[in-house]
């Protein structure tokens, strides 16, 4: 008993130390705007916004293992809701409105995509983001006859940074609590085996939609907070699909096992993409794409191992050494499973076999 009391005391001290260190870290980070140049501050704003997006992405995708490319949709909804409502609403009211719109869209999308799995969800979430973007472009050109919106509000980069820092603390706390909660365990079980999840009494669809909404609300608010940073916003800018891909790469690079792991993906990727953007502005997208491929294909053993683990964790054996055809074949197999052929080719063969089998039985 003495040992366990000692253990408990030690654990409590460690928790207190960790909390103290975090509080100190946040305090230091909060003073960043006082100490840095404009350039450094805008770098930190980028880091904070992508950090929130990546952790929010991991809240949903890291647990349910449904890879979402809808990040840009919610980020854009946040940004564009603020851009559209800023003339008629106070700033904080338009932030709140953005969250409500984001949550509502997440609810509808979540309910619609419940039955999708694997690659279908990836494609649907990407398609959804592109559809919203096209819809907004069409709306602005044909209905409101504007090319975009001007956002002039007294909300400077320092304010944006401090708010994003606060949001990062909140999303971190939510992630931390989730790992120690009923809901968190449910999400883990769902991510691994939905049949087992149902069999232990978990309401699978409800849980998935709930975490999708939570994740989307963080993404939306990030977009909303970023809106005042740009004086002119058009739909193509707000709903930039690159955001979705960058977030996935950041999460994969950093890892999903530890809550703080995305930091390791966010910072190097932002540094890298800023380098590329300033030195090769015209080739930026292409080079970023190449960097992604390099990360996925050629990084040494250690990181490959990490990626393999992640792919395994995602439940899909993506065999990269087989080149392009391998993943394509796999992709086709995933694509064809849930919808076109409910039980796949194996199912068809099995059914044929069953049609023959009873006859074989009758003969005897």
């Amino acid at each position: 008993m003495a040992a366990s009391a000692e253990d408990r005391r030690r654990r409590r001290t460690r928790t207190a130390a960790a909390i103290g260190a975090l509080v100190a870290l946040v305090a230091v980070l909060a003073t960043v705007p006082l100490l840095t140049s404009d350039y450094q501050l805008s770098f930190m704003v980028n880091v904070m916004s992508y950090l929130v997006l990546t952790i929010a992405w991991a809240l949903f995708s890291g647990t349910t293992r449904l890879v979402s490319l809808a990040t840009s949709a919610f980020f854009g909804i946040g940004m564009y809701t603020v851009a559209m409502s800023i003339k008629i609403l106070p700033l904080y009211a338009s932030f709140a409105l953005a969250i409500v719109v984001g949550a509502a869209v997440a609810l509808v999308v979540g309910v619609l995509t419940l039955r999708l799995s694997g690659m279908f969800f990836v494609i649907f979430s990407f398609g959804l983001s592109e559809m919203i973007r096209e819809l907004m472009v069409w709306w602005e050109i044909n209905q409101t006859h504007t090319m975009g919106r001007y956002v002039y509000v007294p909300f400077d980069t320092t304010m944006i940074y401090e708010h994003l820092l606060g949001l990062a603390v909140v999303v971190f706390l939510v992630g931390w609590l989730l790992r120690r909660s009923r809901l968190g365990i449910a999400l883990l079980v769902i991510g691994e085996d939905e049949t087992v999840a149902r069999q232990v009494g978990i309401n699978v669809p409800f849980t998935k939609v709930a975490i999708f909404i939570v994740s989307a609300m963080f993404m939306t608010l990030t977009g909303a907070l970023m809106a005042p940073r740009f004086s002119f916003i058009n739909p193509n800018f707000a709903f930039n699909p690159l955001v979705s891909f960058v977030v996935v790469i950041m999460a994969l690079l950093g890892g999903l096992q530890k809550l703080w792991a995305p930091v390791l993906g966010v910072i190097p990727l932002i540094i890298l993409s800023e380098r590329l953007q300033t030195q090769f502005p015209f080739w930026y997208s292409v080079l970023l794409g190449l960097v992604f491929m390099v990360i996925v294909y050629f990084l040494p053993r250690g990181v490959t191992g990490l990626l393999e683990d992640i792919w395994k964790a995602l439940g899909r054996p993506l065999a990269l050494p087989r080149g392009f055809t391998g993943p394509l074949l796999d992709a086709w197999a995933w694509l064809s499973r849930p919808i076109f052929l409910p039980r796949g080719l194996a199912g068809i063969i099995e059914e044929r076999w069953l049609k023959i089998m009873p006859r074989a039985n009758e003969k005897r």
Partner: protein
Amino acid sequence: MAALLEVENLRKAFGGLVAVNDLSLAVAAGEVLGLIGPNGSGKTTLLNLIAGTIRPDAGKIRMAGEDVTRLANHLRVRRRINRTFQLVRAPPNMPAIGTVMAAVLYGAGERVRFKDAGYEAAGWLGEMNVLTKADRRFDQLTYIEQKRVELARALATRPRVLLLDEWLSGLSPSELEGGMSVVWSLAAQGIAVILVEHVMTAVRALCHRVIVMNAGAKVAEGRPDAVLRDPEVIRAYLGDEDA
């Protein structure tokens, strides 16, 4: 004995194949009902229908008087119906105790605090004699340990009706003996057990009553010794054996 679970004229077809055909059964608290039949006769499908893994085309399922035919899987768990799977199912990357904790938190009915769920889950693993394996991933467990963890997961939801799909198959003689005493003690605690099994020693020793299925339909029902002597049952089984 009043029936706890009643199944009436249940039917399920997969395309042209009728896997469960107009089947009725009832099982009372504390009773072990054996369900036997050749491979492909529809036993697992029947359990899937009762557990809510799949939906029937026709028929009724009543649990403690309540119609649960249309109820979702997770809601039937909360109505105290649970099961094990013929091919053991468990999250591959979670420690063994993980699903048991989830079962305590979601299936057990009353609200359990997160902090207590671990202890309670450990208790269930202990009851199944696999507590020392609580932190192992599933693929690090032996076959019998996997089966015991899966049963612990089912028991953690405090079932009143328990569906065991070949839970005693593939065990060594001494493991079989241990497994049989587990099933026996569950029934003694008042759980209604439906036991799908090919191991006839277990069926003879444990079951109060046996239902024999063939091609989705019930072909015999009664006390194990009588049923297993029935010529039609023997024919069904021999037909299976040289397939």
